[in-house]
């Protein structure tokens, strides 16, 4: 053993010496030559030049046209690369949501909650490819930052200039194109962000089969519908061109298109499902049902903030738009102000700097800045985050203690309320330095405090619309689905935890808290036999609170 190591060491030393000598010899050759031929470029300053143009632009082929083609190609390269970086970052938010939601809920439902956050992504991809993307973007025209070769020209309009739904690209037809598929991917992860938000508010009692149908519904119909009106060239985006209301309804990266959509569908789902067993007492007062893994939730929050670099920063749709650094700076200012505000308020109000609410505060800051991040100055981003951090605490307590709706992770307050605040803040604080030409209006985006009340009016119309579509559409969908197949698990399954009866497996089989000890194997292998009596809730609450 020792002998073979010695041999390897000696061989390695000999090889290193050989390379060193060879290197010195090469250097000598260079100094001896008359023309300074660069064979290596350690500091990178000589890398990239005329000789790196594509063959069609070299030698005799080098004309102004071929050079311009080359520059244009590189401009689109900046778009496509930045968009794919953004796609990767936003995709990773799926992991953030999975950790956040699972950490905030109980160990006995961990497989079910984590599973929803993964499977919603796959369902979403299918729904988005078949129907969702075409409905949302099938009529948006040419994608200028991505080459713009394909004309997405299928728009259903109720009147000239008032589009309501796209019609081109079903199941990928007519969009087999490098630029459009890049855009398809980037928009896909936004849709899946919206789709995964309601699972947090509906977790610990949502029947899996109903969840699967919901996944297709939101990715194929509800999300693309409102999305078309804002981002796909639909009627809300044309409020400026048609009615002179600022630049039309604007939501830069999705405070409402993504977050309020998810947040209000979450509210609809939580209302139709009803509260978890044991959440509210007979007199309506709420009980605490703490999450089982706060470190997991904190990690999820950090993953989400990380993903937001792409969520907001890459929504420029091109890396050649240097406003993206302002956008990312605004994003993190709002995140920080939201988190710190929530921490101090909880500390003051309840005596401890509640970390679960600090997570929600930081996320609310991120959600709120998502719409205005491109149009406001950094000081405004700080203020927007600060208000969001306070809003989320009021929102969580309002949903729980006034609406009496059980939202285990605070999705309604974080995504719904902060999302509405975000688009409103755009209408107030947009300072007229960016966005000239947005939605076909030539002037830059300017808010109420900078003299354009029309923009604020457009924002108000959009905010009301998203509540109607998400809350109304979501409520009708869940209500109908509930009548057809039932969307809630049985109370036996809920008390036992959804993991064994719904999913067939426990998250932490060796951890005594993950299932109540009265769970006995059934001949089917799946938990307690049907009709088995379960202990009263009173005895369950005697437990540590983490497990049962």
């Amino acid at each position, binding site marked *: 053993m020792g002998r073979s190591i010695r041999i390897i060491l000696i061989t390695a030393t000999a090889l290193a010496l050989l390379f060193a000598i060879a290197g010195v010899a090469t250097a000598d050759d260079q100094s001896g030559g008359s023309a300074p031929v660069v064979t290596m470029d350690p500091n990178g300053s000589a890398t990239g030049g005329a000789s790196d143009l594509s063959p069609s632009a070299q030698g005799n082929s080098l004309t102004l046209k071929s050079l311009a083609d080359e520059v244009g190609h590189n401009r689109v390269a900046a778009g496509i690369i930045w968009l794919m970086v953004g796609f990767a970052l936003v995709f990773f938010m799926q992991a953030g949501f999975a950790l956040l939601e699972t950490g905030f809920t109980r160990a006995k439902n961990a497989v079910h909650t984590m599973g929803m956050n993964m499977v919603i992504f796959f369902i979403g991809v299918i729904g988005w490819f078949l129907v969702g993307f075409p409905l949302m973007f099938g009529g948006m025209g040419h994608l200028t930052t991505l080459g713009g070769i394909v004309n997405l020209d299928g728009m259903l309009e109720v009147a000239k200039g008032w589009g309501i739904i796209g019609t081109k690209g079903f199941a990928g037809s007519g969009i087999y194109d490098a630029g459009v598929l890049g855009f398809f991917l980037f928009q896909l992860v936004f849709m899946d962000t919206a789709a995964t938000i309601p699972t947090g508010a509906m977790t610990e009692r949502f029947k899996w089969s109903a969840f699967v149908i919901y996944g297709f519904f939101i990715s194929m119909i509800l999300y693309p519908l409102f999305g078309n009106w804002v981002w796909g060239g639909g009627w809300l985006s044309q409020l400026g061109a048609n009615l002179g209301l600022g630049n039309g309804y604007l939501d830069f990266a999705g405070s409402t298109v993504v977050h309020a959509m998810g947040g209000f569908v979450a509210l609809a789902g939580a209302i139709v499902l009803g509260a978890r067993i044991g959440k509210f007492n007979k007199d309506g007062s709420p009980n*605490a049902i703490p999450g089982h893994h706060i470190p997991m939730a904190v990690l999820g929050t950090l993953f989400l903030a990380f993903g937001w670099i792409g969520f907001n920063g890459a929504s420029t749709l091109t890396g050649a738009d240097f406003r993206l650094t302002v956008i990312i700076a605004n994003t993190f200012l709002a995140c920080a102000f939201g988190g710190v505000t929530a921490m101090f308020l*909880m500390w003051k109000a309840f005596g401890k700097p509640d970390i679960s*609410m600090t997570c929600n505060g930081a996320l609310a800051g991120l959600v709120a800045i998502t719409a205005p991040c491109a149009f406001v100055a950094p000081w405004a981003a700080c203020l927007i985050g600060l208000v969001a951090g306070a809003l989320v605490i009021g929102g969580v*307590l309002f949903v729980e203690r006034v609406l009496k709706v059980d939202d285990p992770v605070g999705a309604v307050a974080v995504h719904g309320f902060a999302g509405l605040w975000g688009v409103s803040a755009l209408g107030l604080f947009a300072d007229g330095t960016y966005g000239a030409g947005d939605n076909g209006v030539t002037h830059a985006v300017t808010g109420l405090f900078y003299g354009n009340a029309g923009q604020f009016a457009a924002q108000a119309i959009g905010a009301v619309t998203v509540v109607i579509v998400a809350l109304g559409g979501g409520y009708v969908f869940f209500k109908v689905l509930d009548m057809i197949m039932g969307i809630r698990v049985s109370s036996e399954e809920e008390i036992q935890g959804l993991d064994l009866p719904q999913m067939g497996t426990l998250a932490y089989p060796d951890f005594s808290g993950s299932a109540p000890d009265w769970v006995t194997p059934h001949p089917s292998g799946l938990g307690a036999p049907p009709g088995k009596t379960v202990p009263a809730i009173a005895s369950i609450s005697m437990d*540590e609170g983490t497990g049962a």
Partner: protein
Amino acid sequence: MKKIEAIIRHIKLDDVKTALDGIGIRGMTVTDVKGAGKQKGYTEQWRGSKLTVFLNPKLELKIIVPDDMVAKVIETIAQTARTGEIGDGKIFVSGVEEAVAIRTGASGNDAL
């Protein structure tokens, strides 16, 4: 032979074990337990709501000793596990009919 069951605080396990070692007691079974006595539970906060947990986590030591060691073991545990605050724990003693060492087949006091 007697069985001594001592409910103690987690932080006292090392002290108790070292002290028992000092009087020649090496065998014991230690279990994580939850229970309630005079000590009240603790209160957690979750998003502004309070949650009281009635049961406190403790350790249970199970030690089987020859009759003539009982007083000594009880005294040792009581001294080393004491902090003087509510929640120090309890010691229970009961009789044991028989003990067998599985490897050697020894029984009675020889099995301990």
